[in-house]
């Protein structure tokens, strides 16, 4: 490697590269999903060009049949392929939940390890575009609550690429949640290394070091956590920000080491707060570090409501930078 020029690309391109690399490396990798082939290349253009390059037998446009899509992926995975299924928007996971939770997740266990399901379900998620209650949810907690599934939520293009390649070659089923608003927005573009740069599942990223409070997040909210850290730095509060990257497997060691140091933690995610991933993580921190904490772990998440349509209500549903700042301050009282 001689070049040091940064290559700033959006998450949509990074994901495309990941699938391109995986398909080039292993002919067992194939894609299936609604509208994913040319001339459309996916409704969000994430699979643009791939059907031209690899053929429509490997980049398969499907009917609107989520249960049949995931079922086909499960069967093909057991039979030795590495399917990457796209569910256009995360709320539609509900339509194929049986195939995901009763089959993809449990087959390895139920068969005593004889049959395994190495597949990826890619799905876009998140509020902020006034798509209403059925097109805006972050439902990662459903999958975390199902033993057998791995769960990945990238926060930037470089991670998205590295984590997706790892997910495709992972021996287990992976739910790969792509924050919809980050696909093409240049403010989230970043330097993405060329080639097969895998990022292992289960390895959190310390995005920013600090000593007073640890903010733990994933996906789009990592950026809000960093903004909150910037604001508080000006007030003399030093905030450490951890991007979990993957919820299963969870890098507890990194989280616990950080909170042992700062003695304060805030968990941030966009999903509904009640029974969200923050509830689990907060419990784990309390279980491990109870006597040493300077304050109870705080949670910042979506309101316990469906996602509303009206702009002002939608904004009020989604956790904002100011909410993170307020939560951090509440721990420092």
């Amino acid at each position, binding site marked *: 490697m001689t070049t040091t020029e940064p290559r700033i690309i959006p998450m949509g391109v990074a994901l495309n590269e990941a699938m391109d690399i995986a398909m080039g490396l292993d002919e067992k990798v194939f894609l299936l999903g*609604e509208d994913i082939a040319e001339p459309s290349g996916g409704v969000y253009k994430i699979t643009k060009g791939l059907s031209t390059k690899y053929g429509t037998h490997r980049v398969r*446009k499907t009917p609107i049949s989520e249960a049949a899509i995931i079922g086909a992926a499960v069967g093909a995975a057991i039979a030795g392929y590495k399917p990457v299924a796209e569910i256009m928007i995360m709320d539609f996971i509900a*339509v194929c939940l049986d195939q995901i939770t009763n089959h993809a997740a449990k087959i390895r266990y139920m068969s005593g390890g004889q049959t395994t399901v190495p597949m990826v379900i890619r799905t876009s998620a998140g509020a902020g575009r*006034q798509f209403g209650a059925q097109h805006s949810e972050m439902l990662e907690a459903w999958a975390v609550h199902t033993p057998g599934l791995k769960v990945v939520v990238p926060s930037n293009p470089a991670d998205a690429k590295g984590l997706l390649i790892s997910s495709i070659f992972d021996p287990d089923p992976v739910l790969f949640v792509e924050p919809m608003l980050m696909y093409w927005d240049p403010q989230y573009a970043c330097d993405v290394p060329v080639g097969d740069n895998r990022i292992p599942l289960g390895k959190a990223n310390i995005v920013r070091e600090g000593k007073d409070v640890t903010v733990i997040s994933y996906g789009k909210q990592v950026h809000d956590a960093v903004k909150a850290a910037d604001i508080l730095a000006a007030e003399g509060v030093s905030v450490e920000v951890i991007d979990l990257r993957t919820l299963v497997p969870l890098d507890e060691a990194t989280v616990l080491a950080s909170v042992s140091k700062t003695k304060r933690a805030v968990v941030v995610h966009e999903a509904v707060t009640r029974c969200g991933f923050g509830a689990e993580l907060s419990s784990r921190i309390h279980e491990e570090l109870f006597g040493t904490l300077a304050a109870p772990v705080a949670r910042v998440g979506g*309101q316990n409501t469906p996602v509303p349509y009206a702009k002002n209500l939608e904004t009020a549903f989604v956790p904002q930078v100011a909410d993170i700042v307020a939560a951090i301050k509440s721990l420092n009282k």
Partner: protein
Amino acid sequence: MATTNRPDSPDRETLVQMYEIQNKIKTTDERFRSMLTSGQIQLIYYSPRGQECISAGYAVHLRPDDYVVTIYRGLHDHLAKGVPMRELWAEFLGRSTGTCKGKGGPMHITHPESGLVVTTGIVGSGIPIANGFGLASQLAGTDQVTVVNFGDGASNIGAFHEGMNMAAVWKLPVIFVCQNNLYGEHTPMSMSTGVEYISERAAAYGMPGVTVNGNDPVAMWHAAGEAIARARAGEGPTLIEARTYRFYGHLMGDAMEYMPKEERKAAMAADPVPAFRAWLLENGHATEAQLAEIEDKIVAMVDDAVEFAMNSPEPSLDELYTDVYEEITK
């Protein structure tokens, strides 16, 4: 040819009523698109333009207490069933005065007073729910019927197949209107569907299925009338496949690169709404003055609704927490 002439064609009043509904849909759609294009408003918008005759054709057979279930591309069904223009606009714009207080948005328009009971954004999901309305009417012993609208793409999802079978087994008073506009999002029907006509699928469930030219108002009126009469008489469900075309692709801003230009041009040249207008005049079913008066009235109604919606407040922030349960529940 705009429409068929049959001896048992609808009377003049019904013909004009159908035109009025079609024109209301077309005028409303045109206003939405022009305001979106000019940037006056911003929202996710699924144009129903091209599909007007289907909604008009079934709606004139319905009573206010009949139920309609529809989808995100539902503006034509909403208007045809009589959802009031002001509240409809206000909901699309996310205002507190909207049908759903601005909380549902265009994909979830609900106005029980008009019988527009469910609008869903999940493909196919309205079909089983429509059966529930049909079951309720059957249990209560009323002769209400339910019309459920969905696309060609939706006929490939499990909910369609389960719902059709249950409706047939239980002889539910439900009319399944598949508005076949030949595309599901960016995929042509031929690439996703194993049959040439969606109506063929009815046979598999033991219910009558018909394919009708959805752009022919009189043909649609006949097909809907027969199915609705059968349902009202307790003789069970029907699948109507109404063939049509979406003029503006899947949603506003769609580049439509997957739709052959010539195909779209031809469909738009055969625009069913002006064609029906001309047919009404040629056949002496209406006068120019009569139709012009209707059209002016609709423009005024849309003007009024736009002003009403634009001047309405956003929902208050407390509304975020209401309506999750009957009472605010922790």
